[in-house]
């Protein structure tokens, strides 16, 4: 009988030992996981990572909806919001009034403008979108997706703020708003761009 008791004691001790190590290992893994998540950028921070930040904006030119030739280079000297959009994209529809507000605020001063780029959509669809919702900034067609690739765009809406010298200073994924864009422009001006 005493032998059985010895076995029970040994097995019990071994199990407790294993459980302790398993718990410690799990705790360490969880701590690492929390540490990694805690050091990531908050989802509320709309500034998106992009290798283009701080670099010269890629060449952007093409035919606008009205048939005229448009280029980012021709807008040198202005703050330009390069906005990738599509008529089928609901957040694009939602942000559109904000872009109208932004262009109206800067119309008199002429210091900032919006340059739209069609993402995976057709010019007639986007023309209809603008006739329905308003807005009068140039929108470049990008039928082969080359401009989207040059800017590293994954899906609309994505926006880039290009400073008057042609450098990308901000990228946003998702809807933008006029106040947020104004704040970015003001910050850029304060830095002396």
């Amino acid at each position, binding site marked *: 009988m005493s*032998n059985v008791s010895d*076995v029970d004691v040994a097995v019990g001790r071994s199990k407790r030992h294993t459980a302790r190590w398993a718990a410690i*290992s799990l705790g360490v893994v969880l701590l690492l996981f929390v540490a990694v998540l805690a050091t990531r950028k908050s989802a509320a921070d709309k500034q998106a*990572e992009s*290798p283009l930040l701080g670099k010269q904006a890629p060449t952007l030119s093409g035919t606008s909806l009205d048939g005229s030739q448009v280029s980012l280079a021709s807008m040198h000297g202005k703050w330009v919001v390069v906005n990738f959009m599509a008529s089928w994209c609901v957040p694009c529809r939602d942000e559109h009034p904000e872009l109208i507000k932004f262009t109206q605020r800067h119309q008199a001063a002429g210091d900032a403008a919006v340059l739209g780029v069609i993402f*995976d959509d057709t010019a007639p669809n986007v023309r209809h979108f603008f006739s329905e919702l308003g807005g009068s900034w140039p929108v470049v067609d990008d039928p082969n*997706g080359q401009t*989207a*690739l040059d800017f*590293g765009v994954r899906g609309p809406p994505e926006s880039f703020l290009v400073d008057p010298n042609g450098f990308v200073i901000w990228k946003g994924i998702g809807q933008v708003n006029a106040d947020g864009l104004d704040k970015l422009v003001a910050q850029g001006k304060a830095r002396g761009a």
Partner: protein
Amino acid sequence: MKSRWAWLAMAAVLVVALVIGAQGRSGPMTQAERVKHIASEIRCPTCRNQSAAESDAAAAKAVRDEIQRRVQSGQSDGEIVAFMVSRYGDDILLKPQGSGVASLVWVLPVVAVVVALAGLGIAFRRWRARPGVKVSEEDRALVERELEREGV
């Protein structure tokens, strides 16, 4: 003894298969094969878990066209992949790079396998020779009775 030979045979088959698999095909790739190979390492920008080689999305086609243009202009695979990373960032690559937090993807499975093997080794050693276990005469008699009853 028999099982030891079986394990050795399985190990030999595994090694031969790995060597054949690692060698791959011989001879230089054609341009089309290079485009497909590079595109298979690039994530389709609009469909997260498919490669640009597999996807029918417009963005994936744009990536394939860009790779083709660059292959035709004489760029190396590394230069083309570097261009894609310079536009989209590291996560455009289907295989994460071995630096920064992304290196955990490569390190953690190795650590998990080592820990699991060590755990198994410790468990086997304990099962083989548990010092606290003493077999009494009663236990032996019990086992013999059961074996007789089973006709072993």
